[in-house]
């Protein structure tokens, strides 16, 4: 699949690839009301990655339903909508409107948004906050509910367990990591918002680790993302416990990357004698290897 915020509405990529070649697209963050997003500058390149501070610019769910959906509904792949909100009521109302769109089989709930009614703490930074949003949406939304987890937490497995208990059908992980860039010549931050979300190849080790830890904590499927730009990367996430993957930032560097990754996964299976890609899910062999309990490699006394 393609990750929300990196693939527009799919139309932007039709010059470069056949959308039917991939499992699905997650269209960009949709909120109840129109949002203009953050002021420019909204991006900074970082070593093997980038920061973004787009701020969920979108025309709102009504515009999506009335104007964009009719244009994209016949794209020959699964179309999921990423849903973002500032209050639980916003999430619920947005989810209900999307539920009415027949060709959308599921939503991806972005719980990394600040809860404006609770001092701006992101819903997804606490198990309780995450569970409350998911419960509320679950009550009204009957199709596939995928919850996108924020990595900016102490223990992502705790959040994952909470959203599973609240009724999520799957989780996608990870969203962007909070980071910052400074222009040393001008002595100012690069982003208009000072901090932003880090993505790209540099986050892969963190995303892999989180997928692996979470796969041991929950039963519902995990969709892995974070720095995937090759079939090998994708396979690493499957081995770590993901049932599917999303490709995000890599689309900016090669808009035709996703079908190449799909082909590469098939080629890997053929080369290693796997009859189905499902055999790779969670197939990481860790016998004899102990994950470090301490934050450093030194033995704890």
């Amino acid at each position, binding site marked *: 699949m393609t990750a929300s915020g990196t693939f527009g509405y799919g139309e932007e990529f039709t010059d470069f690839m056949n959308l039917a070649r991939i499992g699905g697209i997650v269209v960009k963050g949709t909120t109840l009301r129109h949002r203009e*997003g953050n*002021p420019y*500058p909204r991006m900074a390149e970082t070593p093997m990655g980038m920061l973004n501070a787009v701020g969920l610019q979108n025309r709102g769910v009504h515009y999506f339903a009335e104007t964009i959906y009719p244009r994209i509904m016949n794209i020959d792949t699964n179309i999921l909508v990423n849903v973002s909100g500032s209050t639980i009521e916003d999430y619920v109302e947005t989810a209900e409107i999307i539920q009415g769109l027949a060709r959308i089989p599921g939503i991806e709930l972005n719980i990394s948004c600040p809860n404006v009614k609770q001092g701006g703490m992101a819903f997804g930074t606490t198990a309780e906050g995450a569970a409350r949003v998911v419960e509320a949406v679950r009550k009204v939304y009957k199709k596939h509910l995928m919850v996108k987890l924020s990595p900016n937490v102490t223990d992502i497995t705790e959040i994952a367990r909470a959203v599973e208990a609240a009724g999520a059908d799957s989780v996608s992980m990870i969203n962007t990591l909070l980071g910052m860039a400074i222009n040393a010549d001008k002595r100012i931050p690069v982003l208009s918002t000072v901090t932003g979300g880090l993505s790209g190849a540099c986050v892969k080790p963190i995303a892999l680790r989180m997928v692996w830890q979470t796969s041991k904590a929950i039963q519902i499927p995990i969709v892995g993302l974070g720095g995937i730009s090759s079939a090998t990367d994708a396979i690493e996430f499957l081995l770590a416990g993901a049932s599917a993957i999303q490709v995000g930032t890599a689309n*900016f*560097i090669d808009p035709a990357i996703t079908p190449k990754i799909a082909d590469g996964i098939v080629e890997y299976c053929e080369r290693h004698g796997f009859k189905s890609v499902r055999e790779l899910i969670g197939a990481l062999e860790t016998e004899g290897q102990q994950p470090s309990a301490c934050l450093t490699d030194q033995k704890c006394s």
Partner: protein
Amino acid sequence: MQNYTSSILDLELVETKTLNAQYVLMKFHHESPLPEMQPGQFIQVRIDGSPNTYLRRPISINFVDREKNLLWLLIQLVGDGTKTLAATPIGTKVNMILPLGNNFSKPELKDTVLLIGGGVGVAPLLMLGKKIKDKGLDVTFLLGARSAKDLLELDEFSKYGQVFTTTEDASAGEKGFVTQHSILTEKTFTRIYTCGPKPMMQAVANYASKKGIECEVSLENSMACGIGACLCCVEDTVDGHVCTCTTGPVFNIKKLKW
């Protein structure tokens, strides 16, 4: 919606001309005829071999030589990415997404046209000048730079119209900024196209607005994808935040909130 088709192509570097310590002109060839490209459009160039360069670099189309099937890119060496690109060995294939963005609008036959460029911003004005001249109109170029060594491709611009220059240190042309050049008082222009540092374009836009002259600018906002997906390169316009890679990089000044 866009009216052009973009492709991802590997072009072969056939010539690199060092213009001075900070600028090179690179010419690329493609085995098949180059796609249709319009003045004002740009290219997302992938730079290999530069560890700190993760994303593509957006570079204006300087010129397209249809006879030889060559694409020209004017590169300013600002950082690791552009320095690595400029040092690419001849014969190397460079991966590009092209063409991208909108284009400068066509002038009307009754227009008196002025193309104002600053520094490496002169790049898109070369192909624009040629296209306007091919349509039968006279073209005037007004090119500004800090110093004479920063005035680029003057011999090329001269092929398509009269060239006037300004330098801040008086090493060539008239001393000062482009908006201070005497040609602006001597001749009346009805349409201005400009590209260069933002303060220069803002001064030109201010001048054009006061005189009621049609004016288009070309922006170079930082971007990740270049194809309208990431929403990083936005400019705040009268229509809200729009992507400079699809709704731009060319904007009529009436659309901007300058």
